[in-house]
């Protein structure tokens, strides 16, 4: 009896070995791209997103201060050791021209934090030793804000190594001094508006693309071969045309003295140019144009697979054309609708170039703010936090898309 089980165990083991060999072959073929993408794609993105919760700015230039604040529990008065450490750090960082890094970071944590730090840097440079050895008094003398309990607490919260500050800020939330998470006051709220704008522009673009693309795709699949061919070219040509050419084209069309305004004025519909560009209208129109092929192509693919007999059967069973469409045809196209809509929406929420070129200041979406915080205000933490929000949305939608797409393949 034991003999049999031993033999069987050998067999199972031998089988496992053979299977492993096969898998390795497949894996070795995939590995080069996989490794390539890890280093040129995954790690860079991870490195960026890491900045949304990493908080090393203050620690990198003010090591002594951070050593004190990290040892402190944050309640009550600041420890006395804070002041000499802070003074030494400020002086050292001012000397090595790195004080601005801390100033920028503290500006997010303390109202007027930048000015506070920069002023202190200038003044402290002149003080070798404080009177009575009391650095606290010196800081109090510089600005009462320094010795307010919440300032020390704010420095402590900015000491890293990790923070939830940026991620909260990206959702217009912040932590009170007591540690509770509250919504930013109405007048300071920005990112929820931006997020909402990103979604609403994308939603509108998706909706318009669907309303325009559905009938077009329908006709494309039911036309004679030649007409369908021409209709397909009309979708593919924009699809292959550079995004910048298409965006430039819309500027030509929609600008104040552009073709559209010209035309409308010439036929007397309007008597002065409409504002069609550098506003929401321009963004939605141009983006709809750019993304329309991504709606039409999946829709047409699904519609091609629908057998016309099903509609004919419905008609022969007494359904009116409208009922046959609504009850029989439309439901069969839903996978295509879902695929197209998700594809358009996923692309739209990441859009940058088109809104940047044809939108106004109030039409910029999340991507624009990410670029802005990186390039202009060097607020990398916030840029990364907004990136986390954007990427989270994209990922969720992509997973849904993948589910729908594979579901269709198996059906």
């Amino acid at each position, binding site marked *: 009896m034991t003999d049999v089980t031993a*033999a069987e165990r*050998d*067999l*199972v083991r*031998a*089988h*496992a070995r*053979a*299977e492993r060999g096969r898998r390795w072959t497949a894996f070795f073929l995939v590995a080069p791209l996989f490794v390539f993408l890890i280093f040129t794609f995954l790690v860079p993105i991870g490195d960026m997103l890491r900045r949304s919760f990493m908080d090393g700015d203050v620690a990198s230039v003010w090591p002594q201060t951070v050593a004190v604040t990290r040892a402190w529990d944050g309640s009550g008065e600041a420890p006395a050791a804070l002041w000499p450490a802070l003074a030494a750090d400020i002086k050292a960082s001012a000397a090595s021209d790195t004080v601005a890094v801390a100033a920028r970071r503290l500006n997010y944590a303390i109202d007027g934090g930048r000015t506070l730090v920069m002023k202190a840097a200038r003044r402290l440079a002149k003080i070798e030793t404080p009177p009575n050895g009391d650095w606290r008094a010196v800081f109090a003398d510089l600005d009462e804000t320094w010795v307010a309990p919440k300032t020390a607490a704010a420095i402590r919260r900015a000491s890293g190594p990790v923070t939830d500050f940026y991620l909260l800020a990206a959702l217009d939330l912040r932590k009170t001094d007591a540690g509770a998470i509250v919504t930013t006051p109405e007048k300071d709220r920005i990112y929820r508006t931006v997020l909402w704008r990103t979604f609403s522009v994308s939603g509108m673009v998706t909706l318009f693309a669907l309303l325009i693309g559905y009938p077009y795709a329908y006709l494309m699949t039911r036309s004679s071969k030649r007409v369908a061919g021409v209709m397909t070219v009309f979708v593919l040509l924009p699809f292959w045309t550079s995004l910048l050419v298409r965006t430039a084209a819309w500027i030509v069309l929609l600008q104040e003295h552009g073709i559209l305004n010209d035309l409308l004025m010439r036929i007397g519909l309007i008597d002065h140019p409409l504002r069609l560009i550098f506003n929401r209208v321009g963004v939605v129109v141009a983006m709809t144009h750019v993304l329309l092929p991504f709606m039409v192509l999946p829709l047409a693919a699904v519609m091609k697979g629908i057998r016309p007999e099903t509609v004919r059967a419905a008609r022969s069973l007494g359904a009116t054309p409208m009922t046959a469409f609504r009850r029989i045809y439309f439901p069969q196209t839903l996978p295509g609708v879902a695929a197209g809509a998700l594809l358009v929406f996923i692309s739209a929420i990441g859009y940058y170039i088109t809104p940047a070129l044809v939108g106004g200041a109030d039409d910029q979406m999340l991507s624009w703010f990410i670029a802005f915080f990186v390039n202009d205000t060097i607020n990398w933490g916030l840029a990364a936090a907004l990136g986390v929000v954007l990427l989270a949305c994209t990922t969720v939608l992509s997973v849904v898309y993948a589910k729908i797409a594979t579901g269709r393949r198996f059906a």
Partner: protein
Amino acid sequence: MKKPVAVGGERDLAHAPTLVTFQGVSKTYDGKVHVVKSLDLTIAKGEFLTLLGPSGSGKTTCLMMLAGFEVPTSGEIYLGDWALSKKPPHERGIGMVFQNYALFPHMTIAENIAFPLEVRGMNRASVKEKVTRALDMVRLPQVADRKPSQLSGGQQQRIALARALVFEPELVLMDEPLGALDKQLREHMQYEIRSLHMSLGLTMVYVTHDQTEALTMSDRIAVFAGGHIRQCADPRKLYEEPSDGLVATFVGESNRFDGAITGRDGDVVTVTTAAGTRLRAAAIDVGSEGSAAVIVRPENVRVGAAASGLDDTIAGRVADVVYHGDHLQVHIAAEGLDVVAKQSARDVVAPRPGDEIVFGFSTAHARAYDPARTDH
């Protein structure tokens, strides 16, 4: 050169050297179900061996292990003296004809046939000559420059055969090569394959579902079931003396009577059916008690007057008579069973539906098997 032999299945291969040996070969795809179970099998040089068996019994798997596309999970296969386990498929030199032919669609017919020669580095002139000869051999010299898609199914079949033979392999494997052809073409191709086998002195391993095909073409047939070989014998022995019930019912048509063994006298058992009829049958795969399945071929069922000389007869009613051209099939309802008897169509008095009738069979033609090893 071999002498042409008139009747298939009666060539003497007993003294031919062994070409292929399966030694304790087992295979599992998933680590759980054993598709092939410790298989031992030898194939002689020049033999035409057919693997026959129900769907899923492991025939293709055996062929694939021999060709090198699947690896035995344990055990070893030898080709001549080589152990095959370390030899990749392209070094085995085994010709293979695939069920869907697997002709390369982007190459012409000539290029397809030239492929095995080119990869062996043969010079152009000899390649050209061999391709021409191969096309002549399958009698399709005119299609050399066509693409596979421009050929009919039967023509593609022959090209696949030519391609598998052109590099002169000793051993050729075929997995249901005629499955996609219509009946007439299939019979024609059976003949052609058989005569190629003989004239070229090839060793063939042939997989089929079609038992007539197996019986007419093979030197030996291995009947597979559940990963085991149930019987491996020449066609006549397989048909006339199947060693277990599954083989008996799988190869050829048969009538089956189930009952309990009520007596044994040497090699003859008496089986009593549920209806109380006593049948005497040769004991093949049974002891002297327990249940048994008695198997009788339709052509051995004697009906009406022809049954009169038998010891035991059974009464029934003719349910239907079906005309098959050369013979009649008489369906008799008896004991709740549908018993089929085959009769020459020339018989003057054919029974008619509704007739009361007696039938029976000689003890030599009834074979008793263990029912547990009879069900598929």
